[in-house]
């Protein structure tokens, strides 16, 4: 029992070799971008039509705010490039529906807003100023959950935060974007962590890195060696180590109560990419208009880690990577465990797009499901200590009350149960259906 660990979890093949040693490449400016009004968890943005006269034919500059919402749990969206607004209306979205979006055709000049300038030194910024900068920059959790970052930096007064954890686990197979960010933008991550610690009044900062990325861990360890209150933490490699409750438990020993947020135990965590975005917002005044993502999978001709402007169409990204092979079975946005399969590549890269995977039959395992043989491998692999087979069965039978009694709502859909199931039952899919039905009934 040398290193701490959480219960359950699975060990899928990493499949990170194709891209883990490839430096981040800046993708050339896209010809056009599609900017959906919802790229975060929370209230969708409304077009700033009356404020900034955004309409078809209107010229915008990079960094110009396109949409916002007055609600607290929301994050504005900005123009990622300069050019002309050519269309406003519903567009394909990675979530599988059409969402109102602004389409901008590039003028190729990449002209930025005049107010894109450094916010000043961290020492001079007040806590409220930091929160305002992060909010106005439209920064959300870049690990994929896309929760507005400023909300996590504004805990209620009765919930003091003492630890900030930077999530460098990147436990999803295939993805290497966070790994590369840690290697290439380590200093910016540490600065971002300091910003968060100041905003939260936290006394301790931890940078957690899975031990299958020893180069990133060693670099972090070296860079924070002089820092008194920041440390690097080597996490055991196990999926879903990057899930916030598992991360907090392993790094601090604290158990986030069921149904509660990490701030309940005095912890806030942010992805490495989020830390970099916050740093850039403060140092350069840049809103969140680009991100690093991994393009990989057996169907990708030239796998890469790319720095991409938000709104770039996935089809254009794939083309830049040499296209995808004809044997591609699934196009996935995100990681292979929790990402969303797409019916088309005509979708934009959004804030939460951590990866684009073209998976062939080398990657995906397609099989008919058989009856449950009650092997309980799902039970022992569940990091939340649930009984996936029983919840799935209850949901399948429409017995949502039973599903709720079995703590269905505590499932965060990591997919370990479906992954491990020898009968290949889509357990997490049934649980998701169950959760939806339970919530529907609750909201009635």
């Amino acid at each position, binding site marked *: 029992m040398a290193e701490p660990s959480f219960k359950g979890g699975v060990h899928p093949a990493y499949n990170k070799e194709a891209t883990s040693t490839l430096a981040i490449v800046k993708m050339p400016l896209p010809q056009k971008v599609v900017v959906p009004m919802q790229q975060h968890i929370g209230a969708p943005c409304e077009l700033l039509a009356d404020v900034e006269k955004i309409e078809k034919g209107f010229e915008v500059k990079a960094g110009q705010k396109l949409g916002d919402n007055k609600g607290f749990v929301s994050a504005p969206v900005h123009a990622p490039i300069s050019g002309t607004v050519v269309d406003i209306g519903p567009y394909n979205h990675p979530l599988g529906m059409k969402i109102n979006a602004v389409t901008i055709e590039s003028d190729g000049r990449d002209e930025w807003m005049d107010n894109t300038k450094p916010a000043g030194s961290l020492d001079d910024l007040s806590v409220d100023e930091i929160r305002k900068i992060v909010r106005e920059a439209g920064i959300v959790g870049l690990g994929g959950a896309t929760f507005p970052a400023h909300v996590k930096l504004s805990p209620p007064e009765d919930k003091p935060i003492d630890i900030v954890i930077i999530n460098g686990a990147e436990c999803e197979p295939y993805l290497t974007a966070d790994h590369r960010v840690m290697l290439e933008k380590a200093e910016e991550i540490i600065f971002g962590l300091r910003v968060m610690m100041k905003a939260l009044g936290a006394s301790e900062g931890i940078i957690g890195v899975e031990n299958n990325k020893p180069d990133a861990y060693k670099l972090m360890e070296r860079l924070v060696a002089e820092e008194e209150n920041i440390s690097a933490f080597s996490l055991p490699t196990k999926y879903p180590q990057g899930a916030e409750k598992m991360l907090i438990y392993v790094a601090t020993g604290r158990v986030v109560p069921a149904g509660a947020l990490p701030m309940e135990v005095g912890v806030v965590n942010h992805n490495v990419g989020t830390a970099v975005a916050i740093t850039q917002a403060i140092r350069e005044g840049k809103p969140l208009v680009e991100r690093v993502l991994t393009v990989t999978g057996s169907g990708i001709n030239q796998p890469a880690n790319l720095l991409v402007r938000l709104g770039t169409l996935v089809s254009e990204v*794939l083309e830049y990577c040499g296209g*995808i092979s004809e044997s591609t079975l699934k196009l996935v946005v995100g990681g292979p465990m929790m990402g969303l399969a797409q019916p088309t590549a005509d979708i934009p890269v959004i804030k939460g797009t951590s990866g684009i995977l073209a998976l062939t039959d080398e990657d995906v395992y397609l099989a008919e499901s058989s009856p449950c043989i009650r092997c309980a491998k799902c039970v022992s692999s569940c990091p939340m200590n649930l009984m996936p087979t029983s919840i799935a069965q209850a949901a399948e039978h429409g017995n949502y009350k039973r599903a709720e009694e079995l703590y269905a709502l505590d499932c965060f859909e990591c997919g370990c149960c479906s992954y491990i199931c020898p009968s290949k039952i889509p357990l997490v899919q049934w649980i998701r259906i169950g959760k939806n039905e339970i919530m529907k009934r609750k909201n009635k």
Partner: protein
Amino acid sequence: MVINGKLIVSSSPHIKSVESIQSVMTDVLIALFPAALMAVLLFGYRALLTIIIGVFSAMLAEAIWRRKRDLFSDGSAAVTGLLLALILPAAVPWWVVVIGSFSAIIIGKQVFGGIGYNIFNPALVGRAILVVSWGGHMAGDIWPSPQPFAFGYDAAIVTGATVLASRELAVTFSLPEMFIGNIPGSLGETSALALLIGGIWLVYKGHIDYRIPGGFIGTVFILGLLFGGGFYANNLMTGLFHVVAGGVMIGAIYMATDFVSTPVTPVGRLIFGIGCGVITMLIRLWGTLPEGVTFGILLMNAVTPIIDNFTIPRQFGGVNKSA
């Protein structure tokens, strides 16, 4: 960019482990190989025949019922057939084996809806049916004495009782002899050593939960120690005697750990194992039929849903219900 063909859209996760029912069942067959090998080494060609007939007739019964030409299929019928053969006496007539296999597959499993739906362990259902229907072939002085490495000897010629029949007989065998398996008994149950090797491998592979055999064997040992009467040198030795004698090892490691008919919760599995041990010892020490393990496990199979229901684990972070 043009994408050729249609993209599959399905729910995450998009990757899955390569493990299947067939691969798990194959692993169980591999785990049982040492026990099967010991059976042939100890009881000769009759053991080999019984094993082949058991496995083949079980697969045949399944294929006929499911009207499938694929004999091995998911491998579960082969496991049932092998397990049944290993808990039969070496001298048993071939037709008893066939009836046992068909009973196990059809009455024990298929009438409930096939794999995943059976309430009782199919192999034990087969054995229970044989015991009550053809008791003369299944109990009494029908147990051949093992003849190590004498492949050609006919195990049916010289028979006697098992070590569990009487204390006088029991003390004529040493514990190491019983651990290796050089004693009268069912084909595969006598060698605790061979069973243990396969069992450790199954635990390592994550196919069985140590809680069930642990609870089962531990309970048998403690009850044997406390109530066994200390006839076997001393109380401690008597406890060990009950562990290695009869079907406790094969039952605890391979039957009580059957996926379908046992609990899925960790605590439930421990309770299940302990329950099997208690019933086994009740029957052994105070019952009339020499079928402690068989009925211990079958009875616990019956209460498996109740055990699961009362041992639902608290979710991570769920200590404080008011949160």
